[in-house]
């Protein structure tokens, strides 16, 4: 198993390197000069001498291969460089922002799973019934409604009209835990909606499948009552594919919370990336892409490992 993980990690690192190199090269190809942009904030004309001086300071006058090797060398030693904009260490900034994005994803996943697994199981047990039809409709709607629509409407209702919750923003947990959680509710719920739909549907499908399995009949033959059968033999087994899907969905969310972070002013990693791309802050963009793709690839690996732990039949070494 360890050997397998090591092998997969190597492949993953290779992929990350590929992705990062690609992004690095592409970034330099796209229009937009970071120095010019920085100095023309507020639509003011920048002085060409100042721009030239700044370009030199940013190292943008070096040949591209030189910049690439310098950057890669830094990355290998764990140094993601410093922001073009204010010289802040990129790694430090990512460390600050990543937990916030993970928090939204985590809270959303928790919410989605807590609602989705029981409801999906219920729908499976009542398959073909009215409740099942209703849930199927609801989950289809949830899957089809873009998160920015949900977010905008939620702000209008809960913040502006009812004034139950703040409209958006961020306060660190240590500063004001209550406000922090209040601010988390809307973005996490918005993300949770589509995730809930995915989990509900997946749970329903796998529970239906598991219910047909012989071992569920065996459990009935043992004389177990409904609850333990459902818990230990149906849901427990059905959770394996549900967990896989949830894990993969979480992976796509790492870079995919852009819209939610924008709508709710949640200062996470995705929004950071967009602002870095906007400002052509190359070290920041490359650093964030490294972190996101690493997380993504390793999350997928983790999903496989957890799967193997949950389902003793899966042997990682053989696959």
């Amino acid at each position, binding site marked *: 198993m360890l050997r397998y993980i090591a092998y997969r990690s190597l492949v993953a690192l290779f*992929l990350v390197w*590929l*992705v990062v190199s690609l992004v690095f090269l*592409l970034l330099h*190809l*796209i229009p937009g000069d970071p120095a010019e942009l920085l100095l023309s904030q507020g639509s003011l004309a920048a002085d060409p001498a100042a721009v030239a001086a700044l370009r030199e300071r940013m190292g943008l006058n070096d040949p591209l291969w030189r910049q690439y090797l310098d950057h890669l060398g830094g990355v290998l030693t764990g140094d993601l460089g410093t922001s073009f904009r204010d010289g802040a260490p990129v790694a430090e900034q990512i460390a600050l922002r990543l937990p916030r994005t993970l928090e939204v994803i985590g809270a959303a996943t928790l919410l989605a799973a807590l609602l989705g697994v029981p409801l999906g199981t219920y729908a*499976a*047990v*009542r*398959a*073909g*019934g009215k409740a*099942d039809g209703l849930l199927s409709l609801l989950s*289809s*709607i949830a*899957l*089809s*409604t*873009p*998160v*920015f*629509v949900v977010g*905008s*409407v939620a702000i*209008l209702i809960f913040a502006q009209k009812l004034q139950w919750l703040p409209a958006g923003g961020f306060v660190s947990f240590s500063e004001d835990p209550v406000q922090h959680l209040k601010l988390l509710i809307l973005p996490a719920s918005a993300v949770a909606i589509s995730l809930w739909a995915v989990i509900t549907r997946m749970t329903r*499908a796998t529970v*239906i*499948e598991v*219910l*047909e399995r*012989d*071992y569920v*009949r*065996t459990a*009935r*033959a*043992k*004389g*177990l009552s*409904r609850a*333990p059968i459902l818990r230990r*033999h149906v849901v*427990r*087994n059905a959770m394996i594919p549900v967990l896989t899907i949830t894990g993969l969905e979480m992976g796509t*969310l790492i*870079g*995919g919370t*852009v*819209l939610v972070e924008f709508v709710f002013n949640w200062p996470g990693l*995705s929004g950071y*990336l*967009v602002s870095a*791309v906007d400002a052509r802050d190359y070290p920041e963009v490359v650093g964030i892409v490294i972190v*996101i*793709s690493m997380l*993504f690839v390793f999350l997928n690996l983790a999903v496989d490992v957890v799967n193997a732990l*949950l*389902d*003793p*039949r899966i042997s990682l070494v053989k696959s």
Partner: protein
Amino acid sequence: MTRTTRKLLLPGTLIGLILAVIVLAPVLPLHDVRAMDVPNRFAGPSAAHWLGQDEFGRDVLARLIWGGRASLFIAVGSALSAAVLGTLLGLLGGYFRGVVEALTVRASEVILCLPPLLLALLVVTILGAGTGPLMVALTLLYTPNYARVVYAATLQVRALDFVTAQMAMGAHPLAILWRTILPNVMPPLLVQMSLVVASAMMIESGLSFLGLGVVPPTPSWGLMIRAARGAMEVSPLLLLWPSLALAGTILIFNLLCDRLQAVLDPRNVTAGGALWLRKGPRRAALPAVPAATDGPLLAITDMAISVNTSERSLELVRRADVSVHSGETVALVGESGSGKTLTSLALMGLLPDQLGISRGQALFRGRDGRVTDLAQLDEDGFRRFRGAEISMVFQDAAAALNPVHRIGDQLAEALRDTGDAQEISRRVVDLLRHVGIPDPERRQRAYPHELSGGQRQRAMIALAVANAPRLLIADEPTTALDPTIQAQILHLFQKLKSDTPDMGLIFVTHDLAVVAEIADRVVVMYAGEVVESGPVAQVFARPRHPYTAALIASVPEGAADRLVAIPGTVPPPNAMPPGCRFAPRCAHALPACSAAPPGAERPDPARITRCIRWKEVT
């Protein structure tokens, strides 16, 4: 119209409608999407502008339709180009494997290392916003999905005999790909397609919303939502229309995807769900059963098992008469489809949801001496008996044991009247030892897949006898095993019988050699009916039914082979012949045999046969 086409009718029609409106947009009498009418901005719906006017006073309905054109053009266009590209990569990778696979399927999977929205964002910033870049971004994004699906399907199809044959005959690989593999991967491709269109629309609208997608003044739903958001409070309807259109269209494509999946993979269609899980209304008190002070452990009389469909009811098993005395082993014999397994499942209340006992009685004498009619029990009623009084060994232990729980835990779960953890553990180890599993202390921690087939079956048996049931039903417990292991398991049953002399055993099998070895009495079933029963020695020595005779004759000397020697096959349940069900295959059949179902005849007080000619033919 078949059920499948009916299912596709709704989403198909809706998509057809949407496409028609969008395709016809240039000829529809719509306002110019760019014509501004600033003085009338935010005007509500009117006769001239059915859905009102937007922040520039432009007609919302026209923009909605043209916006759909842009959104769908991008979504469908990129879904198609990704499909072509991905299919090509998947086909090549799956067919040629090796280096080609690395260059096609694996290479495309690099794209999957990036979260989708991030990738789209990067591509669009690099290429600039607009319809073209969006399509490039989305095509890139979805190519690996197709490549994967097609690759997997190609691998499967490639292994099929007819493809191997074509390869062996030297057909050109491209011809094989084109002729045989492509049609075979179409169904998963179709499903993938509707999925991708929905997802592409979602991403397109998101990027347009961020200002990175479709370039104005071309309308797009994402852009309309973006613009309407600012004026949400002034004119909420402006936000509503594009949101509805977007969500609605995605919903329809998702629906199409679901329906397609259901149609192409009918396995997933489960209408009923698991009825046993639902708590039904509690049944009225069971009718009193005349209790004799002594009698058989189990007496099944004239039992029928039917399919309960709304249209009609079809009896799969009928006129089943079986009795088991305590300490007795009764073998239930017959070809597959004879109803022997259904009969045994009915005794446990484990019949599939669509089936039920429709007639007759199955009187069971419990440990406390009370007699219960199993045919009247509901799920809760059965639960009292399962495991404790009646239990069952299933045919395929590999499937019947839960793969994710340890053997010991599954066994512990079955135990009744348990004590503390130590006590449970001791009993589990004892049980495993009892059924002959070596090193039970260690083995109880094993998962089912870590045991050999024979050991799994032993564990299954341990599960069944955990609470010393009064009646054990073994449903072809040796069929899936090697002959040597079969003998060992049979031996185990014999041991269990001698250890618990009061236990009744119903042994379901199609193997007469096994019957001879283990059973006291034999019940022969054919096409859902009991055709003959009696003591094993007598029945084997002198069968009183032509079917039994044929069965015995078909067994090769000293070997337990499949019963293939009887000409013809068991008729399907919906085409049962009137009269004697064996008549069409019977060498001795007369016209009278097909006239009416034969009644039970007793050639001997201990024996029953359902052949009107038993006296002549046996």
